[in-house]
């Protein structure tokens, strides 16, 4: 018996593709010069966000409130892709 039914597997595949597209867009649009100029904590939090899209954990890594981290994403030209 398969672990997941076909439609569930198809949905997982669709989400995998969406996440791949989102990651590529975040990487492509990001202002890497700005990101590399930041203090380590902010820099690594932005890189974590670019790879995962997980804004809450990235904000906590940065030591910022959620809204302040969203503003940092704008300054770093990292888009939220949804």
């Amino acid at each position, binding site marked *: 018996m398969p672990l997941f039914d076909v439609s*569930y597997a198809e*949905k*997982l595949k669709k*989400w*995998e593709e*969406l*996440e791949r*597209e*989102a990651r590529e*867009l975040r990487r492509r*649009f990001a202002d890497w010069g700005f990101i590399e100029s930041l203090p380590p904590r902010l820099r690594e939090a932005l890189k974590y966000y670019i790879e*995962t*899209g*997980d*804004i*809450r*954990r990235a904000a906590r890594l940065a030591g910022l*409130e*959620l*809204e*302040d981290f*969203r*503003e940092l*994403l*704008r300054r770093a*030209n*990292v*888009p*939220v*892709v*949804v």
Partner: protein
Amino acid sequence: MSRSFAIADTCFLIDWARYRGRDLLFKLYIVYVPESVLREVKSESTIAWIASKLASGDLALFTETESEVEEARSIMERSRRMPNTPAVDLPEAICIVAGRRRGYVVLTENRGALKFVELAEDYSGVIIHRSLEILLQLQLKRYLEPDCGDPALRFREYEEDTKHLFPRKDLLNAVATIRRELCGET
């Protein structure tokens, strides 16, 4: 025309607060804001917008019950067992619970919440609208005038104001709908 009830999470609200057409949201919905979401909003401009809309009755406060928080925690746990799923946190999970129990439209930009509702069969009836669907609806209902010379314009304005990007395939589908339904193209 009567408006639907919706419930919004934090990232959705802080992005809409920056959009030039932010008040158009209330042409479609009366929007509940969970207390757990309100606690995350900090900036003066966003708080000012939320306060003015609470005063006008376009926004309403949603106070979570213990039972709703318990169900939300179960959603958080289940989302962590789903492969490669961004975490669903308490504010989004509360919105999903309100979507299931009360039929509110869930307004979110959280990929974890979107994926959870699509994969969890017992939540498949929950309706989620991202900004893309809202901007499309606003144009289809003529609250936001489409530009048939540039049918992507209204979506691009939102992207510019908020530094949000819509997935390209979804955006193309939305623009095709505008062309077909509003601009007389076949």
